[in-house]
């Protein structure tokens, strides 16, 4: 009873071993034919897709077959391989590169990997399979595999018949006599095969660094430059033959240097320093060629040693012909004519019409100015006009006003906010008089 039971057990074990063995052998052949390679995944950067210690299989693919989302094994360039997922494929004039990222990594790999002939796409993996393979390539595993191989060799190459079992069963009369020789031969074969098996197995498994990475970002750095300050000029008429323009020197973002000149004749004006005060003195002698007109004195701030300059500050200076009676001119100031605004025209052609009053005619005339690009502005008008009408428009908003120009002196009307909406009708065309 015991012997048949043991025999059946041994038979079952042999059958299981045979099935596994055939599967293993077939997978090796299939792998060779189909370009499939197994790989032990050594780190967990692809988890949870592929955990550390898994055995993964990659199939050789050409660069054209790669797609974003594929998990691939590519050489890192230092001899090792990295097994990560493709997040981008970049075609450059030096070839195709893939951007990879481990599923468990917070950031993409710093390196772009070139796609050559040596790329494998992972199509299957067995958790812990790599640990098993790794264990079998360790000393105990190798020893057990060796024992297993020897055991199987012994079964396969043993004498055809058990010596003690039914001696009358001998199918070859010479067998009994040859047993010793055959046994030695079998032992030699067994030893040789074992050594070969060890040779195959005493090899190391290449690392496949499904490498970890980590990223730290430093957010929040802000760098900003300063701006130079345009000085505010004050002009004082000292007497009929001299005006003085003064301003305060700026020190932010750094101490400014200043230059001053007459725009019209490019005459440089020496800048005088008194504490934080800067000034230039303008006399008719400095206005050669421009006497009898209004000139502009320009003051420019700059940072020493750099190309940085401030926006110009300007001051108008007037002289009578011959240079007598020099005086400070003024830029536009309030006090212009009272203006009424109305919307005129017809559907699809609505315009702004301005009317104003002025008891006297300005010496130069009127100018209509606007923001928001009212068609026709700025409009320069004669001194006798008291009305102006734009051309038709829509879809604009802004301000519009009238300037009375007396030589260098401009006075502005109050500014009127207009709003012309979209469309043909005038329901949304507004220009309320102040």
């Amino acid at each position, binding site marked *: 009873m015991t012997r048949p039971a043991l*025999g059946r057990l041994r038979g079952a074990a*042999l*059958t299981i071993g*045979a099935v*596994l*063995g*055939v599967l*293993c052998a077939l*997978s*090796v052949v299939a792998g060779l034919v189909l370009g499939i*390679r197994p*790989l032990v995944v050594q*780190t*967990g*950067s692809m988890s949870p897709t592929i955990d*550390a210690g898994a055995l993964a299989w990659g199939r050789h693919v050409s660069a054209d077959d790669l797609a974003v989302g594929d998990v691939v094994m590519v*050489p890192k360039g*230092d*001899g*090792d*391989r990295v097994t990560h997922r493709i997040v981008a494929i970049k075609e450059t004039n030096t070839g195709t590169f893939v951007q990879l990222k481990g599923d468990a990594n917070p950031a993409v*790999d710093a390196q772009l990997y070139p796609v050559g002939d040596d790329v494998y796409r992972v199509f299957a993996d067995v958790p812990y399979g*790599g640990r098993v*393979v790794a264990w079998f390539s360790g000393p105990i595993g190798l020893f057990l595999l060796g024992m297993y191989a020897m055991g*199987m060799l012994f*079964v*396969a190459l043993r004498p055809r*018949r058990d010596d003690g*079992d039914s001696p009358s*069963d001998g*199918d070859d009369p010479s067998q009994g006599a040859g047993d010793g020789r055959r046994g030695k031969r079998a032992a030699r074969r067994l030893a040789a095969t074992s050594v070969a*098996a060890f040779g*195959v*197995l005493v*090899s*190391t*498994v*290449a*690392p496949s*660094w499904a*490498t*970890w990475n980590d*990223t*730290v*970002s*430093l*957010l*929040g*750095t*802000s*760098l*900003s*430059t*300063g*701006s130079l300050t345009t000085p505010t000029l004050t002009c004082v008429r000292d007497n009929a033959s001299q005006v003085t323009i003064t301003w305060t020197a700026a020190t932010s*973002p750094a101490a400014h240097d200043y230059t001053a000149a007459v725009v019209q004749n490019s005459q440089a004006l020496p800048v005088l320093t008194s504490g934080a005060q800067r000034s230039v003195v303008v006399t008719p002698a400095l206005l050669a060629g421009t006497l009898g007109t209004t000139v502009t004195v320009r003051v420019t701030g700059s*940072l020493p040693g*750099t*190309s*940085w300059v401030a926006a110009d500050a300007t001051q108008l200076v007037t002289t009578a012909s011959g240079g007598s009676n020099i005086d400070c001119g003024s830029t536009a100031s309030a006090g212009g004519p009272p203006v009424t605004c109305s919307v005129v025209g017809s559907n699809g052609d609505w315009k702004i019409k301005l009317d104003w009053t002025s008891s006297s005619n300005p010496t130069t005339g009127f100018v209509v100015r606007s923001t928001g690009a009212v068609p026709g502005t700025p409009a320069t008008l004669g001194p006798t006009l008291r009305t102006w009408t734009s051309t038709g428009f829509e879809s604009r908003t802004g301000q519009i006003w009238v300037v009375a120009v007396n030589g260098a002196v401009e006075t502005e009307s109050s500014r009127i906010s207009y709003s012309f909406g979209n469309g043909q009708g005038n329901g949304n065309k507004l220009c309320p008089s102040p």
Partner: protein
Amino acid sequence: MASHARIRRGRTGRARAFMAMGVVVGLGAITTTALWTDSASVAGTTISTGTLDLKVDGQDSVTGYTSLNITNMVPGGSVAAVLMIANAGNVPFTYVASSAATNTPVAKDLAAALQVKVTGATSVTGAATPTATCGGTTLAGTGTALNTGLVTTARPLAAGTNEKICVQVTLPSTAANALQGASTSVTLQFDATQVAP
């Protein structure tokens, strides 16, 4: 009859034993084919359950980094800060760093004008902006501008070690006049990648 059965069993057992050796072939094939032809051989297979942890100034992410902030910068001005890069994990890594800058307004490309310098100085020279600088010589393989690599040649850090680098940003005295009133927001990114032990 009985002897025939035994003989048959003996033969099939032999065949199955041969086939069973396929397991050895299979495992051998895995261990050998896993040995890529171009790979460095490593004695034994280590399956690492280690951790890789990069910390900059002791932190895993910094949202309000202000040490490199500067306002009212003028040509010739500079700002500098020392960063401590640490390997807080238990595997060695190499790290690289890059910077990304966003200009405001976009038309004023302040980031392109700013010059960068990375040295191994462990403290900043000059107490305060706008004259703080990094002493020492420039580290090899480091960037000189924003919006590109800051540390381009990967620097190794063994597990549990750290190093300090000094980052300086300068607006050169040749900066264009148009760069007045410009601003740029900078993100520094440090990337660590595990290396074989």
